């Protein structure tokens, strides 16, 4: 019998390794999703099984995930690679230079998709034609143009200050929030602003990009960033995308999702058909449903909460009799709480990779404090006279806890668990940044797409869950606690 199970297990291992899926990650903005989806569908057309881990929270998360093998591919930009990841002095490195350094880490970049998503100076198309300008250098002779730049661009050394020196410009630009800049330029309040060169909004607002004729801005060529161990066939398939997407094309693709509201899957599929990679117009991949997301979300929260109770409650019971130990414990748990959630999630990656496990561990760590603190407070603040009586009538320590202390502490302990649950539900939306799914997924995607509907698909169920949890605990309290034992406490 055991032998068969073992054989079956071996077969399973064998089958699962021969079908090992290629995992593609993306950062949490439009272009990254789109390129990720294009690569995913291309690999699927070529017969690979693909797993999607989209919307990871930024460069660091993606890089750590790639390094640890949690994902096999994501799209990175050469400038970011050089500066942020490799801390390489040269901000416009050659692909071969990068690969020489990356080889030691078991990683490599492929040739660029063909576009450079760098800073750009944008102006209304009509105005540019009227003034007959198409290069940044020509701004020198247009001192009357009103400029407003995003604060980041205005202050970064490789943004406006350097640009001004390089081109010897003398304008005095104002600062503006990036999201508002397009609106302002559209309404004619300003003439010039900064943008990313492949931004879909450039299309939407009919803006043109002044060329960087003196090569000031660093290069941000988009490249597939992969693990060296990727199957040869997969590398070959991906290399077909080399040079296929120039700035204008990327802008158009971005525009199709942002402006026309097409899904990534549709846009990617159309692109692959146009390029002759496939004929079939059917789209395979769809976003998980709201229900799926809600269930995942609930699962993450619930497991973390149960673990939190399993640790926080006994710990509180053990330490509450010692003032010193209780202080130390609450202090430690409080320290955990002060780590910003995004940072805590990022810290989890090198230890536990990405996905549900690190998300649950992070949520668990957050849930300890409210449970532990309330348990200790509740037990410590019980009327000392009653503690004395419980002892004096001959109850053992365990009996004192079971029949007197815990029942009296119950309302406050329940309130702590409730607080932990509600914090968890909120924080779990961030778990999408490390690929754990849940209701954060539509929120993160929606934020990337500026798609309010999508954001609400995550936010509304999350709020609903929080309300349900509140009601659930109210019910639980009613079942477990006598009304006169409640001190009309209000959740803080």
């Amino acid at each position, binding site marked *: 019998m055991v032998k068969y199970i073992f054989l079956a297990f071996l077969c399973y291992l064998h089958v699962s390794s021969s079908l090992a899926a290629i995992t593609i990650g993306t950062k949490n903005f439009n272009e990254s999703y789109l390129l990720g989806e294009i690569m995913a569908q291309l690999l699927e057309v070529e017969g690979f099984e693909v797993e999607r881990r989209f919307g990871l929270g930024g460069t660091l998360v993606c890089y750590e995930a790639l390094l640890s093998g949690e994902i096999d591919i994501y799209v990175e930009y050469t400038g970011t690679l050089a500066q942020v990841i490799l801390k390489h002095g040269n901000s416009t490195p050659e692909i071969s230079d990068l690969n020489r350094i990356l080889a030691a880490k078991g990683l490599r970049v492929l040739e660029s998709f063909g576009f450079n998503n760098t800073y750009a100076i944008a102006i209304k198309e009509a105005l540019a034609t009227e003034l007959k300008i198409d290069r940044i250098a020509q701004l020198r002779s247009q001192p009357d143009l009103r400029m407003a730049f995003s604060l980041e661009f205005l202050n970064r050394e490789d943004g406006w200050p350097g640009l001004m020196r390089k081109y010897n410009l003398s304008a005095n630009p104002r600062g503006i929030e990036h999201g508002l800049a397009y609106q302002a330029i559209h309404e004619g309040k300003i003439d010039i602003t900064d943008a990313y060169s492949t931004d879909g909004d450039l299309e939407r607002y009919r803006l043109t990009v002044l060329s960087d004729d003196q090569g000031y801005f660093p290069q941000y060529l988009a490249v597939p960033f992969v693990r060296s161990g990727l199957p040869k066939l997969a590398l070959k398939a991906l290399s077909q995308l080399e040079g296929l997407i120039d700035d204008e094309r990327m802008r158009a693709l971005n525009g199709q999702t942002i402006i026309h509201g097409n899904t990534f899957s549709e846009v990617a599929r159309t692109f692959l058909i146009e390029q002759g990679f496939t004929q079939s117009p059917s789209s395979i991949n769809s976003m998980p449903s709201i229900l799926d997301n809600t269930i995942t979300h609930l699962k993450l929260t619930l497991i973390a909460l149960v673990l939190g109770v399993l640790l926080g409650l006994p710990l509180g019971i053990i330490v509450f009799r010692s003032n010193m130990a209780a202080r130390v414990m609450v202090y430690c748990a409080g320290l955990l709480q002060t780590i910003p959630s995004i940072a805590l999630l990022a810290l989890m990656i090198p230890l536990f990779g990405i996905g549900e496990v690190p998300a649950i561990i992070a949520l668990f760590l957050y849930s300890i404090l409210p449970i532990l603190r309330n348990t200790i407070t509740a037990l410590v603040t019980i009327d000392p006279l*009653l503690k*004395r*009586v419980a002892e004096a*009538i001959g109850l*053992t320590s365990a009996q004192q806890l079971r*029949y007197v202390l815990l*029942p009296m502490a119950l309302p406050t302990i329940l309130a702590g668990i409730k607080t932990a649950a509600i914090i968890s539900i909120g924080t779990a939306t961030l778990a999408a940044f490390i690929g754990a799914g849940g209701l954060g997924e539509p929120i993160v995607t929606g934020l990337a797409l500026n798609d309010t509907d999508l954001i609400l698909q995550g936010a509304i169920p999350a709020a609903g869950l929080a309300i349900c949890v509140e009601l659930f605990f109210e019910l639980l309290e009613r079942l477990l606690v006598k009304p006169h*034992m409640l001190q009309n406490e209000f959740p803080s």
Partner: protein
Amino acid sequence: MSAITFENIFKSYRQTFVLNDVSLILPAGQTTAIVGESGSGKSTLLQLVNGLVRPDRGIIRIEEKELNYQYISSVRKKMGYVVQGAGLFPHLTIRENITLLARLSGWHQHAIDERYDGFLEAFGLNKDLSERYPHSLSGGQQQRVGLCRAMILDPKLLLLDEPFSALDPITREAIYEKFLQVINREKSILLVTHDMNEALKLASYLVILRNGKVIQEGDPYNVANHPVNQYVERFFVGAHG
């Protein structure tokens, strides 16, 4: 045989003596009243017996055996304790408060019920109170419930810290009668009170405490007739045994 013996007990909190060389031999099967003004150390003396307070120096013997702090909770089950101010558990009903120890000691439900009903009757508590919670009882009712709780396991030794202080004079007189019946002269009782009337009614031995020292002890009527000083004499003003 003596019920409780205190041998040269010293106890201080932050350098001030609460009990200063107290030695007493309290007779078994009798009620000893400890009388003294507020802060004289009465409650402390009582709590030495059940180990809630440990002496700095000195020895406590219960039925001639030195108090064993290692198995203190089983020792305590053999003493009933009524704390000053009743100290009922707010999350338990009156019935649960009184019967908790019996249930935990594995008594038969039938035996518990029988004893419970007898107690309510004896201490003039209405049966309707059974399922109510302590917060809804008067102070006097709570004290009587506390007394019932202390006596549920039928301990041979009772430690009572002002158990009747919240009763009106009429109820009090009635309860004294019941109490004397219930304890049936078998029990050793240590009764803390500052009411000399109560001491004369219930006790057959009297200890007068002042600033942590025993200033007189003996048969209550003896003490009343031969006070050692004016301080003791003043306790008997208005008392009529």
